[in-house]
């Protein structure tokens, strides 16, 4: 029995985790839908100041 596999993935939530999943999948050959409730992606991390240990701005 053959079943049809769809080569696309829906990622729900565009925070750091959702973005990383979406990037990995897109770069591996899958079509990705990234769903985000707010007007821009980035999630909570984009509200942080600096991050340990590099002191890079979280943006």
């Amino acid at each position, binding site marked *: 029995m053959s079943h049809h*596999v*769809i*080569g*696309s*993935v*829906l*990622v*729900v*939530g*565009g*925070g*750091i*985790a*959702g*973005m*990383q*999943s979406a*990037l*990995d*999948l*897109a*770069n*591996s*050959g*899958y*079509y990705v*839908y990234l769903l985000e409730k*707010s*007007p*821009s*992606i*980035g*999630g*909570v*991390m*984009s*509200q*942080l*100041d*600096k*991050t*340990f*240990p*590099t*002191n*890079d*701005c979280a*943006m």
Partner: protein
Amino acid sequence: MGLAKRKAIYVQYAQAVPLKYTIDKANCIYFIKKGKCGACKKICPTGAVDFDQKEEIVTLNVGSVILSPGFAPFDPTVFDAYQYAKLPNVVTAMEFERVLSASGPTMGHLVRASDQKEPKKIAWFQCVGSRDMNKCDNSYCSSVCCMYAIKEAVIAKEHAGKDLDCAVFFMDMRTHGKEFERFYTTAKDKHGIRFIRCRVHTINPVAGTDDLEIRYITETGELKTEIFDQIVLSVGLQIKPEIAELAKRLGIELTEGRFCKTETFEPVATSREGIFVCGVFQGPKDIPQAVIDASAAASAAGEILSEARNTLIKHKEAVTETNITGERPRIGVFVCRCGINIAGVVDVPKVAEYAKTLPYVEFTTDNLYSCSQDTQENMAQIIKKERLNRVVVAACTPKTHEPLFQETLTNAGLNKYLFEMANIRNQDSWVHKSNPELATEKAIDLVRMAVAKVALMEPLKEAELEVNQTAVVIGGGIAGMSAAKSLAKQGYETHIIEKGKCLGGQALNIFRTPKGEDIAEKLSGLVDEITKDQKIHVHLDSAITSVDGFVGNFKSTISSNGKNDVLEHGIAIIATGASAFKPSEYNYGKDPRIMTSLELDKKFMEKDPSLKKIDSAVFIQCVGSREPDRLYCSRVCCTHSIDNAIELKKINPDMNVYVLYRDIRTYGEREYLYKKARGMGIIFIRYSVDNKPEVKPEGEKIMVGVTDHILGRRLSLEADIVTLATAVIPNRDEKLANFFKVPVNDDGFFIERHAKLGPSEFATDGVFLCGLAHYPKPIDESIAQGMAAASRAVTLLARKKIHTSGTIAETMPAVCSSCGVCVSICPYSAPSFIEETARFFPGKAQINPVLCKGCGLCVASCRSGAIRLKGFDNDQIFAQIYELSKAV
């Protein structure tokens, strides 16, 4: 967050992606007063405002779903004794992050909310909304708050100077992540941040001031009153009710803490097939762990969809590159306003006007946002129409935007290296806000320099190389096996190189998971699957003895029972694991009743009858961890010992079980075990590192002496067994590190590409990392990282061909003196000597374009001036300097 006002039409922040304005329907006059106002629609030059947009229901057919809906910071309003809603100087940690941030409401100026005064004393309260069943239902630990509080305190001191008094009030300090313990120690010893072990009950306003008074008990039992200018509540992470609703609709099981339920051996699989989970919804976690899970979830989806890979993606049409050889430079200069970021300070039209007067400049213009999609398309049209063959963009930083503009050049048929950026934002308008005239002059100078350089640029070639589609995983423990399994399921031939006689690694020595799953059973299932998989080739009793080549084309020699085989592979995953520390303290090794945690696990696995005869058991935590020589937390031992203590208590409920600890670190939902253990009557006694317990076998019993932190007195415990929770120490492998040119830290763990954003890969292309070799971690996290390393590797393997950079070093062999400085100085081993038998230039240096990263170290150190860095050639740099000299 309500810290500052914004308009009813807004972008979330300057760097938002996508950078588009949104109407806040709840505050927009048009929507509140039914059609009144509408000024934005009238004023918008591009007609982008559309009040008639309606909600649409879109149906998508997808092969898999990944849930990463995130969390909400806990709302501390319910803690009435903290008066968060009433007292403006009681803030949440998220609000404090915004105050520290340069793009925040105070532009990074540390002031308190009530009177904009610079605080002199700040306190942090830990576990607000975590480890609490009184005011909220969150009995789990949020995992991240201890570390972020320390970070905020350190950064607050950086902002306000060393006189700022920072105090962190905590229950257990949970710095269990990589390099966290060291940071905690530095915060305490170097930055002078005070750590006080107390959960404060009430915050009282000090009458007549905006200050805050608290009372707490010190460790010696003294009651103290202290006044702070500001108090930061370290709020926990929690799952939003609507997400729990969504999970219900999707038929996904949740845990007690409303996180997504997962199993140890399938850490990113939800209870519904084909739906995966990552981020905080999987369990409270920090950024690196979220990034690991995210890649693991991508891998899990890739495993089930691999036959449909590349069926739905769209390929860009390649534009043929225009040959510009022999053409006179025709330069286009695009000056960006960056909204008001640049134009608010720099006179942008003047800069553009000036650029017209420069030699070879044929076209100039200014854009509102050069990076917007329509401007990009427009730029490509202009390049073609004006037959431009060099481009300068005066805008922001090449670090973030160079690739975007280079792509525009490529789309216009121009070699992407015929491009130069002048940073008139970060290095000009942002830093010279108060001096617009001089800022404009500086912008003019920067543009002139860029034009001079770009005129001398030539098209550069990027080497293209095929990526060998075979993978090598070094280490056959649980992380390595998970990586191999994932790679094979995604269609790649994978070799596991294991130095031991069997697969399994440390998991072979562990009794069960904290969730109660039988490890031996699951492990043998996994080993079976690996051995049966046609695409996985297991090499036991084997080691790598040499590695040649580079990303996409490694050639490794595998030595197995005296036999050497050469294996060609495209990528390598390092999963070399760690082992249990064997201590010399606590009389270990002198009495069989004094054992390590793994030795106790062995007794459980063998159902040792002697366990039934025990009346009293003592566990000692942090043996070899969190000490000056090994300044890291081994992460797994608190949970492991508590689970084993519970198991003993189950065997004999009358048994006296003591856990001697320094801080209990049952992070995330592991906290429930700690709670359960206390409920079962297991006694926890805290000791300090400078007053360690003493263990002495005396006749039938072992006497354990420890100073009780509440009584302040030495106790003597009689024990039948003593279990030492010994450190996890990495299998330090300098040779392997050298083979793949990957770094190792002071503790012997490998150093990843980026602590937060690249936890499962190395800075060296094509080499990935997972498991205990990265840092101590439990089985679920090891498996997730194994899958994450596989996912990162697949993104490379899937490309089949990779391009190297064009800005690389090149030798001029005729000038080379064969001194060898470049060969010895290069961190990437790119330079080598041409073979003595070669027909041309024997013994001279050459640079492998694939290995070269274009850092320029060899160029600067070459005493013969025989190396040039393409794209940063001497004449190009000198032209810039010459133009700069005109400025003064």
